[in-house]
């Protein structure tokens, strides 16, 4: 053996690396599809994260830069300086002391008066007695002297002389004597003691009464709990609510006008400039977009014309909530505006005494912020209670963290991030499984090669990483490309979407590490783990089993016995049995698509349904709530509108750890034509109040007739427990219904008290100054209208995206099934079967699986969506269930079926292209 003739070379680079690229090129269609889907999804999610992060950063910065309030409170009228100063200290007012002082002051006068009167009476009597005694003695002496001189007096004459002298003495010296005596009497210890005792008795009575009242107050507000003063700076932020009209008189909706803001709750100008004179106004940019108002337009607000000189975003109104208790914001028919102080004076409407405040010591976190706001509320309540203006009341108190107008947009951006991430992960998992199934098929096809390589000394890990390479490269490239697209075009699309829903400020695009992690690291890890598990399971098998093509884990020695059906049927069943893992994957994929479609189809359907049921179920076309039920002359306000009926309304809260829901309490006439309650409602054996609850209430909180509901006063700890008599068919809101009598009894009101009128006709004969609120159908449709506006258009596009996703998933999975059977298909061709017959054998099982999967997935998707929907609604006020009419299901079914039909055509062509020689070739 001549070793000199042997030439050694260098160890080459791993040739399998070259093969990875070759594999990807050979299967470029499949990889391209997966790549496109991942890029699109990652791009979208990355766009959402970047847009979110940039916008949130801008919102957070604006809190400080634009001096956002830490909360606000509205009083029934303008508070005096002293009250505001006291509120600003953030200290609890000593309510009992002030009340006691007031009561003592009042009592002191009364006691003094009473004691003085008694003393005066006593002194007068005594003075008179003394004078009489002195006069009697003097006159008797004189008469006695005269009798000694011989003058005779009868007894009557004597008495008469005494009386006359007494009267003269009274006239001459009573006053001075009385004054002197009174003075002396008041100087006596007896008098002082009497006064002291009387005062002490009165104060004891007062203390008892005040202590009782304070105990109740303390219990309600938790005034005895640990309290730290919360010093704040208070700013006047008065506003006027009125109507907004175009120059041509067309009513746009409601508008809230503020005077010039300089110290608190500033604004970001997105177009134009600030108002400079009384004729100029800036309006909310979002509302301007929706109502098609631009700078230079003229608006009639509160009877006065204003020129719109700027479109702005107020830091305290990133979402246009008219009231914090509204279910949904309304950027369509509600506007926030600002004019100069002079312009504000020109507006003909009541000024609302709203005050913003900022904490002097900023809270470090949300927990502390909540604690501060709770403490400040106590200070506010007590300070208003002790105000000089005894009629001053708190009408509203909203800390910033609980203000929907400030937090909703921010929270919603957060929800978008979570939702899109979940979708990305589901889709990546689906794609990873498709990869895994594809690779499993490849492992089967390449079993002998793998066996040879393993027998030659390739380790499992070397082969594992080789087979992992393609999915990892695809997901890595898709992540990079997706992030590039996310940061560029998709981010702008998402921002535009946000701008069309919320009144957001200008923003600067930020590098977002979270986007990178969520859209790159997580998909890579998902792809890695899923493929690792699937591929490792197969590669664990011995080289010999690969060489023998024996890769089945469960060793089924015998084929499943089939009934004596026709040959074609049995053939199809065999195809089905062979591809069960692929069909399971197909089912998961279709379920995923159906979940997305449920949202795309169901959301508009739900909103339509909501609008219809709202219109049908509204119990009166108009609900008029009066600010006072008596006019200026003290006469009860009535209306002649046909069918008008008195009703009462109040708001309570259903408290829970996660969300406090505002509940409307209605009191209606016993035989109301609008809200028909059973006559038995009052007749509970235990004397307990029984009520109806709205269908929305029952559905949201799963309450049944017979259950007891507990509601609380919003700013007090007073609770109301009512037994539910029945569910009232009203899906429009979270409400409780009872008779007016029950209502007045429950809330300690006069027997005939009421809040306003229900009527199907427009009530026109009540002076607007007595009207506090007018609720029409339009108001109740606000939520549906806003959601439809924000999401409606996107849902249509979303539907098409779902069809494309469905088509891609179906394409990828059916491709695997056909590839797996290529040689068999080739052989059946050689045997003489035509393409139609072959297609019917190989495509029919898939068709059946798709149709059945669709059917099941529709319901699973709907149920999953209903769960998501409920989760979403539980964090919002109000309720409407996720609904899908039968036509919606049909639409979903048809959309996926269309996608499948398209793919079937491609599959048919694929089968036709399989050459007959394939079956005759070697395994390679």
């Amino acid at each position: 053996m001549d070793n000199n003739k042997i030439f050694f070379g260098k160890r080459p680079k791993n040739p399998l690396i070259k093969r990875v690229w070759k594999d990807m090129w050979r299967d470029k269609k499949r990889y391209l599809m997966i790549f496109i889907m991942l890029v699109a999804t990652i791009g979208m999610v990355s766009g959402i994260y970047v847009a979110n992060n940039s916008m949130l950063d801008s919102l957070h910065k604006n809190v400080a830069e634009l001096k956002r309030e830490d909360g606000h409170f509205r009083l029934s009228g303008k508070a005096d300086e002293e009250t505001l100063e006291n509120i600003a200290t953030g200290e609890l007012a000593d309510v009992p002391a002030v009340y006691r002082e007031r009561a003592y002051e009042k009592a002191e006068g009364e006691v003094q008066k009473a004691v003085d009167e008694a003393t005066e009476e006593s002194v007068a009597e005594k003075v008179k007695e003394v004078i009489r005694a002195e006069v009697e003695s003097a006159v008797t002496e004189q008469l006695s002297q005269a009798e000694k001189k011989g003058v005779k007096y009868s007894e009557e004459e004597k008495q008469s002389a005494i009386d006359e002298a007494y009267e003269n003495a009274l006239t001459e010296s009573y006053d001075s004597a009385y004054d002197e005596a009174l003075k002396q009497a008041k100087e006596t210890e007896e008098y002082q003691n009497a006064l002291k005792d009387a005062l002490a008795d009165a104060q004891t009575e007062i203390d008892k009464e005040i202590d009782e009242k304070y105990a109740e107050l303390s219990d309600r507000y938790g005034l005895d709990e640990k309290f730290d003063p919360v010093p704040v700076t208070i700013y006047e932020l008065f506003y006027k609510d009125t109507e907004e009209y175009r120059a041509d008189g067309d009513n746009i909706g409601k508008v809230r006008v503020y005077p010039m803001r300089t110290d608190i709750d500033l604004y970001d100008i997105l177009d134009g400039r600030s108002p400079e004179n009384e004729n100029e106004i800036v309006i909310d940019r979002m509302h301007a977009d929706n109502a098609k108002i631009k700078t230079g337009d003229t608006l009639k607000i509160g009877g006065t014309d204003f020129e719109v000189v700027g479109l702005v975003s107020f830091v305290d109104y990133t979402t246009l909530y008219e009231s914090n208790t509204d279910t949904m914001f309304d950027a369509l028919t509600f506007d926030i505006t600002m004019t100069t102080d002079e312009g504000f004076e020109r507006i003909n409407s009541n000024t609302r005494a709203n005050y913003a405040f900022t904490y002097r010591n900023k809270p470090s976190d949300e927990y502390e912020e909540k604690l501060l706001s709770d403490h400040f509320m106590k200070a506010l309540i007590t300070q208003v209670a002790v105000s000089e203006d005894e009629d001053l009341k708190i009408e509203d108190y909203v800390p910033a963290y609980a203000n929907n107008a400030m937090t909703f947009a921010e929270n919603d951006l957060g929800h978008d991030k979570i939702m899109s991430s979940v979708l990305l992960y589901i889709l990546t998992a689906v794609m990873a499984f498709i990869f895994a199934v594809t690779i499993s098929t490849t492992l089967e096809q390449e079993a002998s090669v793998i066996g040879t390589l393993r027998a030659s000394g390739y380790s499992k890990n070397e082969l594992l990483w080789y087979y992992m390479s393609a999915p990892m490269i695809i997901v890595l490239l898709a992540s990079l490309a997706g992030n590039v697209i996310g940061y560029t075009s998709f981010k702008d699309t998402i921002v535009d979407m946000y701008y069309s829903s919320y009144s957001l400020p200008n923003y600067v695009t930020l590098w977002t590490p979270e986007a990178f992690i969520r859209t790159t690291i997580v998909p890579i890890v998902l792809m890695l783990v899923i493929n690792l598990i699937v591929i490792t399971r197969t590669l664990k098998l011995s080289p010999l089993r690969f060489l023998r093509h024996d890769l089945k884990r469960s060793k089924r020695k015998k084929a499943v016995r089939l009934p004596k059906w026709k040959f074609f049927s049995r053939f199809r069943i065999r195809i089905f049995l062979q591809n069960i893992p692929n069909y399971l994957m197909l089912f998961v994929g279709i379920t995923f698509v159906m979940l997305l479609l449920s949202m795309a189809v169901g959301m508009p359907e739900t909103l339509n349904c909501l609008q219809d049921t709202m219109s049908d179920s509204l119990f009166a076309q108009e609900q008029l709530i009066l600010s006072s039920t008596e006019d200026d002359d003290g006469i009860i306000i009535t209306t002649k509108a046909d069918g008008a009926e008195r009703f009462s309304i109040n708001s309570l809260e259903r408290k829970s750890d996660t969300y406090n829901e505002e509940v409307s309490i209605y009191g209606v006439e016993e035989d109301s034509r609008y809200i028909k309650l059973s006559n038995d409602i009052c007749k509970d054996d235990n004397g307990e109040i029984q009520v109806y609850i709205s269908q929305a209430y029952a559905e949201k909180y799963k309450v049944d007739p017979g259950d007891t509901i507990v509601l609380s006063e919003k700013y007090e700890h007073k609770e109301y427990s009512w037994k539910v008599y029945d569910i009232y068919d009203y899906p429009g809101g979270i409400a409780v219904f009872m008779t007016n009598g029950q209502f007045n009894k429950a809330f300690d009101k006069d027997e005939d008290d009421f809040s306003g009128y229900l009527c199907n006709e427009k009530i026109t004969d009540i002076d607007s100054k007595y009207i506090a609120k007018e609720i029409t159908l339009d108001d109740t449709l606000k939520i549906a209208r806003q959601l439809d506006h924000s999401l409606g258009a996107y849902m249509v596009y979303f539907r098409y995206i779902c069809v494309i996703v469905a088509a891609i998933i179906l394409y990828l999975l059916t491709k695997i099934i056909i590839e797996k059977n290529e040689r068999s298909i080739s052989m059946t061709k050689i045997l003489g079967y035509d393409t139609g017959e072959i297609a019917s054998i190989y495509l029919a099982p898939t068709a059946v699986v798709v149709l059945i999967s669709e059917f099941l997935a529709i319901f699973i998707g709907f149920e999953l969506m209903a769960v998501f929907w409920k989760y979403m609604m539980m964090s919002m006020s109000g309720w409407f269930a996720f609904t899908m009419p039968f036509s919606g299901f049909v639409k979903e079914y048809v959309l996926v079926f269309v996608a499948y039909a398209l793919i079937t055509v491609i599959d048919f062509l694929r089968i036709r292209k399989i050459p007959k020689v394939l079956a005759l070739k070697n395994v390679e």
Partner: protein
Amino acid sequence: MSEQERKFLEVKALKKSFGNGETKQDVLKGLDFTVAKGEFCVLLGPSGSGKSTLLNILGGIDNADSGEIFIDGDRLADMDEKGLTRYRRKHLGYVFQMYNLIPNLNVKENIETGAYLSDKPLDIDELLKILGLYEHRHKLPNQLSGGQQQRVSIGRAIVKNPDILLCDEPTGALDYNTSKEILQLIEEVNRKYGNTIIMVTHNEAIKLMADHVIKLRDGMIRRDIVNTEKITAAELEW
């Protein structure tokens, strides 16, 4: 030749059965033999005689029920799965009846899959010339004839210059002329590189070119012959 070289491969009381209970089938019933270093050994026997099972056990891709195998002094039973993979990687080359080439790698790249496993592989171009494939080095497997594909498969196995080349019916799927070409190639490899070659075949004629012939039947060694009158592959006839 030293004792170590004479007993380069030593098999002792090797047993293997498949199935259990009534279906138990003894495939190897206690084999004892040795193969010297550089020897061309042919395992001969009809179908079902256990020769492929023996080859797989020698290759570390199947396990024996009992008995021992020593290769160059190393006991195969002492090796765990990783150890066996390392053993195959460093010492063994495999050639199968089916060529099992990677379809989308060309001839040279397929051979590189073997070269990658060795720290000191043979020069690939030189080997391609010896295999008669240099002109075809850029072709994909499906552009080659069966014989050419088997040459590639031999090239892949031999490029890492293994101590032992295991060939499982390498000519089983080839015609007479091509089979002779392949046998000539294996003979050339054995001569040039000095590898120990163990070839499984049922072709009686091939025993004539071997240094050592072990005849198997029913899982037992019927004859263990040292061929002192071996002829070249070119001279074989069947």
